[in-house]
């Protein structure tokens, strides 16, 4: 086990191997598209090539995680720790699932342009750099690489006015938020003279912040909270999730949100751990607001896609509650919940996209009535996914919520856990009616056959549902694994 020598160019390349492999694949796919971009078969080819690139990147990630030991000495721009590896794993899984779900979706919706897959790969590379960033410059660049690709993806369905409007809203709000983030970076740089998270952290160790640094922290928080759609910075999220093509919505709700949360966690836990009394009240209040408002607004929605969009806002509140704790247990809970939520959400949006047949924006719970009789397996899978979102015991979602609750209770907090449990109870009010419609209502007269799921979608959904159930009943390896990984964040912090 030789630690990677990050002073040589080769060592740096090896330390960034997963990102490098993914970026090179993106360029390769773009090159192939230059010649082959006419037919549906060309689009499929680009999809499979991209999937191979994601697989190669996963292999590189596994190699890196096995080889690299955390390098002491000068902290690098991208971290070499377990927290980054697990984050990267989440992003790559989300990208793989999105690509598989998109294969048939793009064909059915007749969305031309195989560059779609290049954009997914570039967005994923941006997420990986953002989630592993150990330097504020890298935070900004990773965020922008991810966001610029995501703006285009949101507006990708050129014939749909909804998609164009979603792209416009996402772009304007995203650029606005990154302005705040950038000003925060400038002020932290001004007060410490460094953009490195670890070195800035040693500067703030005393627990005292200058006015400039406090303003910088405040602006950084605003920028991040916009990105992860926390109330009151959430207005854009339901509209954008609603209008974007459904597989892209899945990627935005999982990978992009996870990258934002992981970077926020690293920033607060590595750079500002001594100033917790400054940011904890803010995060606590916003977490409570987000859980309450997100769930109440989801109750009021008519269509399933918008309901899932608002529920994604509510889930951001749960994760923010885990960040609030500021402890090792909290960091572990962030990782576990992000993994649980990402898997569940990908399956939910995948099923929605496959069941909707063009009109999935308007799909209501009543449209799913009688699905259990026509397509029993599909209905069962959708039920498991919704129960996991709800946090029902026996599913991965329950384990994630339980970890968040225990991290909060250990930290001596009682208000946030109570709100979290009550908010989850409210969320049953919009998840369960969908399940009831599938199992207890007869199919509406005159409705055509429920669409059969495409094969790639079946594979993705089956794997995810199996993972949700297995981890739900046997969580021990996952719990100890995430806690071990979370402690890597703290070893670095007090180097």
């Amino acid at each position, binding site marked *: 086990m030789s630690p990677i020598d990050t002073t040589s160019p080769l060592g740096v390349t090896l330390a960034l191997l997963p990102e490098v492999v993914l970026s090179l694949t993106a360029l390769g796919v773009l090159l192939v598209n230059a010649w082959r971009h006419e037919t549906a078969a060309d689009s499929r080819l680009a999809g499979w090539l991209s999937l191979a690139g994601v697989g190669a990147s996963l292999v590189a990630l596994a190699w890196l995680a096995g080889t690299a030991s955390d390098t002491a000495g000068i902290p690098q721009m991208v971290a070499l720790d377990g927290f980054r590896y697990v984050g990267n794993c989440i992003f790559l899984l989300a990208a793989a699932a999105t690509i598989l779900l998109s294969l048939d979706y793009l064909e059915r919706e007749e969305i031309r342009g195989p560059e779609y897959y290049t954009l997914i790969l570039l967005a994923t590379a941006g997420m990986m750099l953002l989630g592993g960033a150990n330097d504020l410059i890298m935070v900004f660049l990773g965020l922008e690489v991810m966001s610029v690709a995501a703006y285009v993806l949101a507006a990708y369905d050129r014939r749909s006015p909804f998609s164009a409007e979603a792209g416009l809203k996402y772009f*304007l709000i995203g650029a606005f938020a990154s*302005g705040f983030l950038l000003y925060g970076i400038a002020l932290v740089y001004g007060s410490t003279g460094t953009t490195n998270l670890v070195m800035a952290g040693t500067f703030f160790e005393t627990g005292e912040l200058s006015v400039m640094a406090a303003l910088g922290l405040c602006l950084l928080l605003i920028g991040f909270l916009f990105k992860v759609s926390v109330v009151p910075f959430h207005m854009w999220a339901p509209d954008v999730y609603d209008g974007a093509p459904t597989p892209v919505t899945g990627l935005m709700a999982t990978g992009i949100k996870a990258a934002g949360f992981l970077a926020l966690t690293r920033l607060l836990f590595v750079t500002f751990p001594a100033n917790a009394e400054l940011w904890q009240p803010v995060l606590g209040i916003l977490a409570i607001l987000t859980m309450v408002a997100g769930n109440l607004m989801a109750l009021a929605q008519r269509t399933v896609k918008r309901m899932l969009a608002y529920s994604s806002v509510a889930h951001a509140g749960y994760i923010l509650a885990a960040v609030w704790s500021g402890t090792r247990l909290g960091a572990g809970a962030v990782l576990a919940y992000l993994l649980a939520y990402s898997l569940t959400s990908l399956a939910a949006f995948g099923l929605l996209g496959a069941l909707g047949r063009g009109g999935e924006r308007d799909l209501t719970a009543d449209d799913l009535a009688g699905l259990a009789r026509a397509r029993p397996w599909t209905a069962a899978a959708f039920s498991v996914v919704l129960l996991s979102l709800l946090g029902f015991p026996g599913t991965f979602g329950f384990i994630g919520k339980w970890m968040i609750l225990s991290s909060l209770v250990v930290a001596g907090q009682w208000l946030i856990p109570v709100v979290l449990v009550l908010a989850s109870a409210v969320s049953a009010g919009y998840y369960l009616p969908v399940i009831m419609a599938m199992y207890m209502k007869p199919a509406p007269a005159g409705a055509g056959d429920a669409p059969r799921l495409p094969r790639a979608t079946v594979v993705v959904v089956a794997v995810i549902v199996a993972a949700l159930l297995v981890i739900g009943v046997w969580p021990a390896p996952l719990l100890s694994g995430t806690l071990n990984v979370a402690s890597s964040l703290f070893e670095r912090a007090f180097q």
Partner: protein
Amino acid sequence: MLLGPALAISALLFSIGVLGVLIRRNAIVLFMCVELMLNAVNLTFVALSRFHGVGGQLMVFFVMAVAAAEAAVGLAIILAVFRHTTSVDLKTNTLLQG
């Protein structure tokens, strides 16, 4: 030293940009206000790098490159919206609401 006035001016420019985004409803004007925010931050970086070395000036180049990429993508999206609604006014682009 000029640090105080430079920081004050960039804070002022940034605030004008934020106000513009909040008040105006034309997508192109909104986009220009966002660019104003980014360039105000650039001024902060340049002013601060007098004290902290070239790191701040390096950052300015990254920000300029990113702003250019954002401009390319953003204007293309605004164009796509204009094709559908023949308007870049946010008040008329309200298909998605709730």
